[in-house]
């Protein structure tokens, strides 16, 4: 009897540990995540929270302004790092919703070439709104939603950029 109960509690605990969200990153962007090792940016905590609920208020994610407003949320990591992400519904009814990390970079307004938000808008091929905005919570009105076509366009640009950088290094 006790064993049965222990097993069911264990099974329940196991269920709770199953992440609600699949947190993924484009292969070409993965090196940007890896560069956070040793940076004390707090990415590990953010990743764990993304798996549970990317809309949790204490995470502090906010909606970007301008043309990316419907599709992309931003997040302040520690030590000046910024993270941009979007979300997609599961592809199959029993699948998990997806959090897609689009970019991790430093916020450097004086250096456009390496500034997180400038790079992000360039990759989407849209105008980076010049002024600061009020940063509403990411999921206040709705969750960010990106179309497959928009995401594919972004990924193509990322691949072109990373190929270009690799060529530049060799």
């Amino acid at each position, binding site marked *: 009897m006790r064993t049965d109960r222990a097993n069911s509690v264990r099974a329940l605990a196991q269920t709770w540990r199953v992440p609600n969200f699949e*947190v*993924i*990153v*484009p*292969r*070409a962007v*993965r090196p940007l*995540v*890896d560069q*956070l*090792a*040793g*940076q*004390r*940016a*707090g*990415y*590990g905590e953010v*990743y764990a929270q*993304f798996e549970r609920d990317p809309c949790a208020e204490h995470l502090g994610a906010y909606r970007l302004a301008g043309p990316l407003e*419907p*599709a992309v949320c931003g997040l302040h990591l*520690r030590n000046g790092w910024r993270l941009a992400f979007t979300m997609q519904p599961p*592809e199959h009814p029993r699948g998990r919703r997806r*959090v*897609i*990390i689009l970019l991790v970079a430093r916020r450097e307004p004086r250096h456009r070439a390496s500034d997180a938000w400038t790079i992000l808008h360039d990759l989407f091929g849209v105008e980076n709104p010049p002024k600061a905005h009020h940063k509403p919570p990411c999921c206040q009105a709705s969750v960010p*939603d*990106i*179309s*497959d*076509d*928009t*995401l*594919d366009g972004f*990924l*193509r640009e990322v*691949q072109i950029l990373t190929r270009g950088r690799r060529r530049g290094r060799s």
Partner: protein
Amino acid sequence: MASAATSTAVRTARHVVALRHTARRGGDVRAELAPVIDELRDELAPSMSKRQAAAVIGVSVPTLDKWIDRGLLPVDVAPSGRSRVQRDPVLDLAERVEDLRRAGETRHLVAAAVDRMLREDPQYQHEFDELYGPGLAAMREGDFVSAAPGTDFGRED
């Protein structure tokens, strides 16, 4: 973000299907419509989302999924990891489904249409495999990886 583009693509695809029907009257009509149909078809991307494909054929996404799962409609995986259905087979299938609808059929349309395609053309499945098999296998790996922190991440990283 792209809902307008999506509905435009679906509308264009439906126009292609309707024009193909009209072109089947043959003679001058066929000759006159052929370039228009080709031009419209070329406006469409070579593949479309499952939602778009289902809308073009006029069935639900789960119905479409069923036939994709059975390998009767070729899909490939876009860089986003999403399945994309090839445009031309969708147009072929939509045309045959439309035939059945006009003939008064209301149930199991996709099944009947695919069955008809297979009967009319025994090479149907084989050609799909030949055409799309190697490319699909390469693309199925997908362009996404886990975003989990690496083993070299410290507690504060």
